[in-house]
Each structure stands twice: as C-alpha cells, then as structure tokens.
C-alpha cells in the first residue's frame, strides 16, 4: 500500500456505497416506529407506496437507464400485474371459473408469481414488436401499446370497466397478517430489497455490460459481432416482470385496481422517477420515487395547486443535480464523480 497516495476523505468507492446501503436500510427499518413516535402513522402507508413504486421505477431503469430504451408504456405492465391480483381475487370470491378452471386465489404466494409471469408475457409480445423501432418511434409505439391496453381494461365491463375492481381483503400469506399495515410494509420492503439485489447482479453481469454497450453505440455492438435485438428483448421482459410485481403489490396495498394505474401519465411518472433519481444508477429510481411522491404529498397537504410548485422544483432538480438525486447524493457525500 506504500505507493497509494493517502487522500484524507476518499474512501474506496465500494465501501462508500455499502455504507449508503446500510444507512438506507436502517432508515427504512426504523421509519415505521419513528412514524408512530411522532404521531404520523400514515407515513408508513406512504413509505409502502414509495417502496412499491421504486420497484417499478427500478425495473424501467433497466431498459431506460442502462440500455437506453425510453419506454413510455411501463405503466401497462404495472397495471397488468395489478389486474392479475384483482381478477384472481374476484374469482376466488365468486367461485366463477376463469378460462373454464377454478383459478381464483387470494394467496399472495400464488398471485405475485402469476402477476410477474403474465406481465412478462405481455412485455415479451409487445416488446418483440416495439423493438423493431428505435429512438422517438420506440417511445411512441410503447405509448400506443400501453394506451391500447388501457382502453381494453376501460372497456372490460366484466371486471369493472373504468370503475375498476375493489379487493376487499388483502391477499393472504401463511403465518403473517397481511392486513396489518406494518406487516405489509415489511413484506414490500423485503421484496424491494430482493429485487434491487437481483437488478444489481444483472447490471453487473455480462448481460448488463451488453445493455450498457447498446446504449452507447449499437453500431459498435454490431461491429463486435453482437445481435442486439435478443438482449433488448430479454431486458424488456425482465423490466415488465418487475413492473408486474410492483403492480401486484400496489393492488394489495390500495385494495383497489383500476385502468388509471396504466394511464400514460403513470408511465410518465415512472420515467420521471428514473430521470429525477438518476438514469442508469442502481438506487437512483428509488430516490426518484421517494423524491417525487414525497414532494407530491408535502405540497399536496399545503396547497391544492401543488403541481404549480412541483413542476419548477423538478426542472431545477434536473438542471442542477448532475445525474439526478444520485448525483446530488454523491456531491453531498464528497464523491469524486460528478
């Protein structure tokens, strides 16, 4: 170590980021107790919502931040995941067959995987078509697909149409009382941590390296001998699965599903979380979700014209924090990278 110049405040990068993760986890673990202590138990519910949205935003980040594919239809997979929960719940209550079979269930261990798989299948089918385009056309075609799915559910009177579906009871888990807000918070936190860990492995893998190469130069990737289409498609499927997971959790959290969950403004919010937090950074979308939803709630409690204030704040945040909130975090923590 003799040749390493000792710089006073620069710790190795991975130590710093591990410290950040540990700090975040501690904050998230004490948060519900703190909320009760200061007499704001509703904060736990707000935090649950942020954590769920962070799962969806982190999934969008895989294709938008890492692979450079700006999908404007992410809310479609999120909504499909939610509807899987709603529809399975409805059938478990009425006992009506679904596709001729008794498929209804209110077991979270069943509904979550089904939501993930169904959202992934839809993402595969639509992604396969959308990826024939690139750039602005890709943005528009993903938006068009998502709007198609939105209007399909608006018209789907059997499942409530634009009124949506009410889920009277949260899906159940063995040994745990999911109707308890705090328990559900822990479940969402555990799922979010697991999902972020999986994404960290994926972006650090050979597959993740190819995605980053695609963002920077598709032409170079072709010259390396890489057919990019398959990689982009698999990334779209993983991203859709993550959004489906988030949607399924949100349906349980709100105990309500409606086509509004897949409205294009919701897709826009996901994009915003990614950009605000820092596209192509691991925890950026989570910060983006917390920043956006936190500001919405704060300003919303203060004035009904909160959007007038939120808009300029977001513009400033993007202009002056290079790399979004993750960039800001690095600046505050004295990182060398801007």
């Amino acid at each position, binding site marked *: 170590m003799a040749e390493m110049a000792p710089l006073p405040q620069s710790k190795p990068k991975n130590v710093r980021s591990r410290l950040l993760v540990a700090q975040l986890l501690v904050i998230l673990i004490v948060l519900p107790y703190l909320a009760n202590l200061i007499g704001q138990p509703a904060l736990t519910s707000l935090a649950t919502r942020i954590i769920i949205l962070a799962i969806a935003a982190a999934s969008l980040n895989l294709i938008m931040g890492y692979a450079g594919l700006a999908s404007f239809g992410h809310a479609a997979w999120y909504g499909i995941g939610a509807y899987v929960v709603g529809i399975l719940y409805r059938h478990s209550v009425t006992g009506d067959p679904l596709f001729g079979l008794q498929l209804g269930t209110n077991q979270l261990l069943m509904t979550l995987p089904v939501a993930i798989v169904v959202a992934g299948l839809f993402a595969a089918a639509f992604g396969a078509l959308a990826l024939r385009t690139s750039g602005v056309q890709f943005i528009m075609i993903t938006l068009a697909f998502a709007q198609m799915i939105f209007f399909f559910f608006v018209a789907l009177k059997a499942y409530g149409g634009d009124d949506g579906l009410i889920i009277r009871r949260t899906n159940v888990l063995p040994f745990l009382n999911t109707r308890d807000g705090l328990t559900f918070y822990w479940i969402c936190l555990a799922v979010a941590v697991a999902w972020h860990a999986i994404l960290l492995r994926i972006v*650090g*893998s050979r597959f993740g390296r190819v995605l980053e190469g695609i963002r920077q130069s598709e032409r170079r990737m*072709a*010259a*390396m001998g890489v057919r990019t289409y398959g*990689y982009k498609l698999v990334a779209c499927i993983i991203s859709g699965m993550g959004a489906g997971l988030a949607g399924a959790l949100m349906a349980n959290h709100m105990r309500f599903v409606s086509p509004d969950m897949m409205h294009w403004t919701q897709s826009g919010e996901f994009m915003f979380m990614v950009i605000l937090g820092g596209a192509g950074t691991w925890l950026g979308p989570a910060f983006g979700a917390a920043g956006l939803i936190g500001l919405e709630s704060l300003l919303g409690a203060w004035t009904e014209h909160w959007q007038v204030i939120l808009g300029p704040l977001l513009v400033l945040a993007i202009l002056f924090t290079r790399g979004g909130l993750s960039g800001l975090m690095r600046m505050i923590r004295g990182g060398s990278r801007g």
Partner: protein
Amino acid sequence: MAEPLLQVDNLVKNFGGVRATDDLTLDVRAGEVHALIGPNGAGKTTFIGQLMGEIVPDAGAIRFAGARLGGLDTPARVRLGIARTFQITQLLDEDTALANVALTIQAHQGHSFRFWKKAAGDASLFGPAQTCLDAAGLAARGAVPVRDLSHGEHKQLELAMALASEPKLLLLDEPMAGLGASESRQMVESLKRLKGRTAILLVEHDMDAVFALADRISVLVYGKVIATGTPADIQANPQVRVAYLGEGDA
C-alpha cells in the same frame, strides 16, 4: 495459387444517380497487407460498408474464406472473422479503454445471456483485453475513460478492439487520419507488428504509411479499381500518377 482470403467480384453500388462502387474487383490474400488508396469520394468507406454488411450492394459477389457473404448481417460477418475500425471512431465513451476491449472479448467468447456472475474483474475478459491494448500501444491507458483519451488514442483503441475478436481479416478505415507525426509513426509500428499474423485491407491517405506497410496497393477512382500492384508498380504506373499521385500539379 490458393484461393485468396477475400475475393470481391464486380461489385456495384448506386446511390441515386451516383455510382459509388463501379464494377469493383479486388482480392486480399491471407497474411498480406493490401492498401486501398484513392482520392476523397472514391468510394472507399462505401466499399468497407459493403464488406461489413452495413450497405447492400446492387450487384456483384463477395467471398470470404470460401463462403459467400451475400445476405449475412454485420454480426455474422464478424463471427466469420472480419473486423473493422471506423474512420469516425465508434467507441463506448463512458467506459474505460480496457472495458471497451473487454466487452469485445466477451462478444467474441459467445453469447452474453449470463445474468449473475460479475463481468468486472473476470480474468478471462480483462487478461486478453490488456494484451490487445498492449498490441495497439495503449498499455498504460487502460483505466482511462474513453472520453478523456486523445484522438490518437481513440484510433489506437479502435485497433485494439478490432484485434480483440482475433480476425482473419482486418479492415482499417483510415487509421492515420488526424494523427500527429509521432502518433502516425506509432500506429505504423503497431501495424508492422501485426503484419503476417492477419490479413489487412488498409484504406489510407497517408502515402508514407501505405508505402511502409503495403504488400500490394489498389487504386480506387470513382468507385473503380484502376490499378493493382506492388508499391513499385503503383509508383511507376502513369495512369495512377495522373489520377492520384498528383503528376501534373505545379
């Protein structure tokens, strides 16, 4: 004599009314450096585009190592053993030089549908990548992000990445363009060390470099090869002197 590594026959490409490639016939033998020279707009880069499968020719045939290349896309041709450098560099600007080469090695090793194991620190990628950087004269610059490298170093990195796929044929599109005198000399040295190990089609304006490296030279004018021969033949060819080497200029 054995079949050449690359055999191009009667290649034609029109862009609107412009005939960019006009009945072009050319071959590159295994292990030789074949230089392609010609004035600006002669169709050199268009020709490379057709060899790589980025541009589809209107007529003619390209054979490489005994296989017809017609209908194959760029990745397929790269896997057959053709690699190129870009005149206008195409690099992954946000990554380090070493990571750029490592990703090329990764692509050369097969598919990348591997989702779990960390790519960073994989010795099977970064070991060979460092070797390629060494060969291109960038040994000490591996950890530098591409956007912080000089133009000359970008050109060297292009070469390192082309080498990473262990090509049988290397297409170099003006590797000296924009280089200073010492950088040019360094590039010529790097290419000299490659000579004989892989066949090279060298598109270049720098005549000193061409005459230092080439076994054979073809002269391209308005999409047509007007002469092919040894450097001595080409220098002596009156047609070439008129068309290209500037005979008749004051």
